[in-house]
C-alpha cells in the first residue's frame, strides 16, 4: 500500500505555494507539473533556458527548438521567457528558484545527497544537479524509500560520491514524508496503509518520529 510515483508527485505538489518558481528534475519530479493546485500559479524553470515551461505540445506543434532539460519537446506559455544557460544558472545560484525537486540514490541524515555517480559503473555526469543543490533555498527529494535490492536509501552517511552537502531538508518517498532536523530524519507523515514500524525498518539512518506524525493526505 505504499505510494505510486504519481502519488509521490501529488504529495509534493501540496508543497507548492502561489508565485513559486520551481525547478523539477527528471523522473518523479517531472510528474509534479500535472498536479499543481488550480488555485495557485507557479512558474516552472527549465535549466536549459526557459522560465514558464508549458505542457507537452500537440503532435502538430512539436518544435525541435523547444525542449526541456530532459530533452523532451515542450511548449512555452504566455509570459514565458527564454535565455541562455549562463543566465539560467545565474538564477539558480543566486537563489531565485523557490523550490527544487530532484531524485536521489541516497540521502544522509545530515542532509547530504548522492544522485550522480556509482563508482565502477558508467558515469554520465551530474548535469545541473550540483548547481541546483548547492544554491537552492528549498530542496525536496522525491524517491523510493528503498532501492531495487530493498536497501534503505535514507542512510547515516552517503556511501556514494556526493552531489551536495548538508542541503536536503525534506524527503518524500513512497512510504513517508521526512524532514531533516538536527542531522536526524524526522518522520512527519506516513503513507496510507504503511505502518510507522515499516518506515523505521526501511530507514537505515537515525529516525525520530514527530509528535504530530500523521497520515499523508493523498486522493
Amino acid at each position, binding site marked *: 500500500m505504499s505510494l505510486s510515483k504519481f502519488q509521490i508527485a501529488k504529495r509534493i505538489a501540496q508543497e507548492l505555494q502561489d508565485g513559486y518558481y520551481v525547478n523539477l528534475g527528471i523522473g518523479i519530479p517531472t510528474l509534479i507539473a500535472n498536479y499543481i493546485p488550480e488555485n495557485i500559479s507557479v512558474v516552472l524553470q527549465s535549466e536549459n*533556458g526557459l522560465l514558464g515551461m508549458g505542457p507537452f*505540445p500537440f503532435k502538430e506543434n512539436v518544435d525541435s527548438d523547444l525542449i526541456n532539460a530532459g530533452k523532451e519537446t515542450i511548449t512555452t506559455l504566455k509570459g514565458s521567457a527564454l535565455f541562455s544557460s*549562463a543566465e539560467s544558472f545565474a538564477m539558480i545560484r543566486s537563489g531565485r528558484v523557490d523550490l527544487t525537486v530532484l531524485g536521489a540514490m541516497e540521502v544522509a541524515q545530515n542532509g547530504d545527497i548522492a544522485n550522480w555517480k556509482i563508482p565502477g559503473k558508467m558515469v554520465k555526469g*551530474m548535469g545541473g544537479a550540483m548547481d541546483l543543490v548547492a544554491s537552492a533555498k528549498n530542496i525536496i527529494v522525491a524517491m523510493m524509500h528503498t532501492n531495487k535490492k530493498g536497501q534503505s536509501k535514507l542512510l547515516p552517511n552517503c556511501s556514494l560520491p556526493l552531489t551536495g552537502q548538508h542541503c536536503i531538508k525534506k524527503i518524500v518517498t513512497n512510504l513517508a514524508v521526512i524532514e531533516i532536523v538536527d542531522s536526524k530524519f524526522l518522520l512527519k507523515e506516513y503513507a496510507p496503509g504503511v505502518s510507522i514500524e515499516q518506515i523505521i525498518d526501511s530507514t537505515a539512518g537515525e529516525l525520530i518520529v514527530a509528535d504530530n506524525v500523521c497520515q499523508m493526505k493523498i486522493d
Partner: protein
Amino acid sequence: MKKVYKNAEQAIFDVEDNSTIMLGGFGLCGIPENLISALVKRGTRGLTCISNNAGVDDFGIGLLLKTKQVRKMISSYVGENAEFERQLLNNELEVELIPQGTLAERCRAAGAGIPAFYTPSGVGTEIAQNKEKRIFDGKTFILETAFKSDFAFIKAWKGDTLGNLVYKGTARNFNPMMATAGKITIVEVEHLVEVGELDPNEIHTPNIYVNRIFEGQNYEKRIEKITTQ
C-alpha cells in the same frame, strides 16, 4: 573585412589537429550541425571538445566520436550513445565532467575577461578536490577558471552579414556564452540576412564576438524525445 563564408568547409579552413573547440547546443537542440559534418569530413583529430553533451551515436558530436577525432570531452552530461561508452571504458577517450552551471559560467568568464571566479557548485563533492576553497559570508565556495578554446562552433537562428545573432527557443542554451569565448568564433545560421534586418534591440549576440558566419544547409534538427499530449 568580410565575415561571410560560403559554407562550413570554408569556414573551418584553419582548424588544426589538437584544437580545443567549444560547441553550442543542449542535447541535440541548437547544435552546429553543418560545422560538425564539415569537421568529420576534414578529419581533424585529437580534438578537445567543450560541449554540454556529446550527441548520440549517429548525430551531433557522436559523429566525431565514431571517427575517433575526439581526444577529450569536457561536458556536464554524456553517454547517450554506445560508442562513447565503449571508448571511455577502453580508455580511448578522456572525459572531464563539470557541473552544468559551472560549465556555462566558465564559458561566460572566458568571454568577459574574467580569469577566475568563485562558485558554490560542487562544494563538498569530488568536483572540489584540488580546488581552492574560500569562505564568503560563512558559506564555502570553490575557485573555477575561465575556459580557453581555439574555436567556438555556434548555431543561431538568424544572423546578419556583420555577425549579429538571434537564437530561437531553447536552442539558445550554451551558444551565446560560447560565441563570446572562442579565440575564433564561427557561426552557422539558418537564415543569413542583410545588415539592417535585425532590430538592434533584439540581438542576442552582438557582432563583435563573431569572426565568421555562413548560412547552413539541410538542417535535420533531430529531436531526442518527441513527447506530445
